């Protein structure tokens, strides 16, 4: 992951997202930001900090407390020339809007044979690792990824956060934008003028030859850490950041897996019927004869997200990833 050094700044992911919103609001009159507490407060994570002050109440505003209402009115606004960017306060609080997301945002273009586009972004502070109480740490990407008509992206660093959010806002289609909460405050060099990673493109973020770790969002730093530890043990792990869950970048991911012949998928969400299942299934279908061992998954368990004191048992960690790598039938190969 190299960043060029032209217009670089040191930003947290939260700041990068704020910057993306600000730049989009400044460049395009039709962009609107709304949701619960996104106005004067700037959102509970401060991602919309200062936007009402800078762009006025017409462009960034609080709504009544109702998620279906937020998504549903955003759909209507998108039908009528706007580009709404809405915030769901935490993952699980997006569920009341599920019908609006799945049956309308995702399907209106198809329903109208292409006549009605629904360009909108639904931002979801996402996943765990912050010691949040119940409902504040769900990983909901699989619900959305399974729903045709939605794009689903999850940045893992500040630069991608900026680029992908700009791209999501510019997209003619609805985008579920998953923001890994635990990465909000990590500071990094960001080149705001760098070419934006296209929605639909994965990135090889660490080279390696023995096995491939496939991760996205909050699991990417964990995977990188695991690769670092493995390197010390003399095992060379490649890390792929999926970045765009839908559309999925088969080419990059499969090329990576073919190059090593072994893979582990890492994700926080419960594994059953999930994005991680899909990655295992589709990569296996495509790379079967290049695989020395079945692809392993290191995911959250098939349990409700645990209480704060127990979340570290649930979340994929370095040790569990390395155990899975050890399990990739090295003797037989």
């Amino acid at each position: 992951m190299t960043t060029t050094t032209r217009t670089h700044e040191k930003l947290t992911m939260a700041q990068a997202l704020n910057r993306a919103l600000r730049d989009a609001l400044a460049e395009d009159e039709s962009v609107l930001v709304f949701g619960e507490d996104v106005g004067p407060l700037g959102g509970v994570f401060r991602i919309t900090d200062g936007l009402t002050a800078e762009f006025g109440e017409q462009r960034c505003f609080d709504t009544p407390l109702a998620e279906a209402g937020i998504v549903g009115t955003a759909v209507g606004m998108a039908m009528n020339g706007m580009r709404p960017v809405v915030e769901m306060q935490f993952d699980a609080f997006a569920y009341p809007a599920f019908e609006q997301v799945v049956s309308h945002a995702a399907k209106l273009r198809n329903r109208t044979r292409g006549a009605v586009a629904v360009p909108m972004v639904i931002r979801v502070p996402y996943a765990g690792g912050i010691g949040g109480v119940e409902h504040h740490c769900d990983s909901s990407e699989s619900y959305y990824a399974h729903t045709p008509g939605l794009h689903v992206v999850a940045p893992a660093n500040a630069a991608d956060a900026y680029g992908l959010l700009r791209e999501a806002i510019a997209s003619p289609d609805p985008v579920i934008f998953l923001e890994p909460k635990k990465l909000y405050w990590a500071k990094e060099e960001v080149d705001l003028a760098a070419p934006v990673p296209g929605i639909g493109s994965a990135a090889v973020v660490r080279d390696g030859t023995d096995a491939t770790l496939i991760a996205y969002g909050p699991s990417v730093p964990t995977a990188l850490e695991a690769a670092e530890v493995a390197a010390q043990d003399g095992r060379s792990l490649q890390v792929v950041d999926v970045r765009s869950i839908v559309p999925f970048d088969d080419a990059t991911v499969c090329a990576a897996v073919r190059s090593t012949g072994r893979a582990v998928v890492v994700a926080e969400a419960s594994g059953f019927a999930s994005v991680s299942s899909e990655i295992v299934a589709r990569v296996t279908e495509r790379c079967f004869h290049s695989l020395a061992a079945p692809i392993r998954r290191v995911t959250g368990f098939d349990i409700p997200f645990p209480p704060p004191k127990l979340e570290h048992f649930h979340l994929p960690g370095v040790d569990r990833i390395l155990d899975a790598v050890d399990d990739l039938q090295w003797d037989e190969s």
Partner: protein
Amino acid sequence: MTRDPDLLLPSDEPVMLIDPSGEPTGLAGFDLPSSDVLLRAYAAMVIGRRLNDQAYALVRQGRLAVYPSSHGQEACQVTAAHVLADGDWMFPTYRDTVAAVARGVDPVEVLVLLKGDWHSGYDPYRHRVAPQATPLATQLLHAVGVAQAAKLRAEPTVVMAMCGDGATSEGDFHEALNFAAVFQAPVVFFVQNNEYAISVPLARQSVAPSLAHKGVGYGLPGERVDGNDTAALLAVVGGAVDRARAGEGPQLVEAHTYRMQAHTNADDATRYRRDAEVAAWIERDPLTRLETYLRAQGVLTDEQAAEFAEEAERVATHTRAGLNQDVVPNPEELFDYVYAHRTPQLEEQAALVADELAREDA
């Protein structure tokens, strides 16, 4: 905008300007619409009735999968369209075929949904008619969004957001009314209370004094109107549109009407209601009422009535012809509208289908 509950509560009885026998009631506070306006509405109702009955017949003939008829609700249907200006929007439900047609959409295009060729058959931007909504009350939020977007751009658009009595029980109804009220969005929520949600009578849906009494809880005026009295509908719903356009915010209008036929042809209404109940409503038929009034006023002549009937026949013929046309569906299209551009995955899947078809042809 007012918060005075007295100004937000509906009148004690539904507003009626012409009674079931065709006599003006002389109710104070409302002007009778002009003869021109009423005559135009009547003509559209004659077409609407014919279209309802034509569509019903087309189901029996297997040309439509199913048809939720608005027979008996034509006064509401036509009013919803006629009170709007060109730049306004309408958000109809599956039952509001006649309303969409009264707004100018080709009935053949409207019926594409129920014919099964596609989920919606018309371009919503052409007549500013949203696709007919199937999931109940969900479209009311879209209506608020469309209205608010227009308001933010200072456009004079008003949005007619339509739903049935049953749909008022859904959470989205609540959220839509509240968002509209807080935003002061130019929306008219027009509830056709036809006494049933499929088999469920209104008494099982709500025990409120009336559905119009829901308005005050959002700080928007609720009004109720005789839904089979075209004059009262035009006055009340038209008034709500005017107020919304003038920047006075959203309004809720409940029209008391009746679903004369089963929910759809697939439904068996004898399981849950008695013929006597239906028969009583025949007395209140909206077409008869308006016709009696217009004839008494000397506004509607036999010649005109014959013209209207002919026009209705033309529409029915056109509809029949359109629906008798077998469209050969193109499976490639399945992949074209999911996103603005096919994803690589959709390209693969489309190729699979193309390959299958090529092999079938070979």
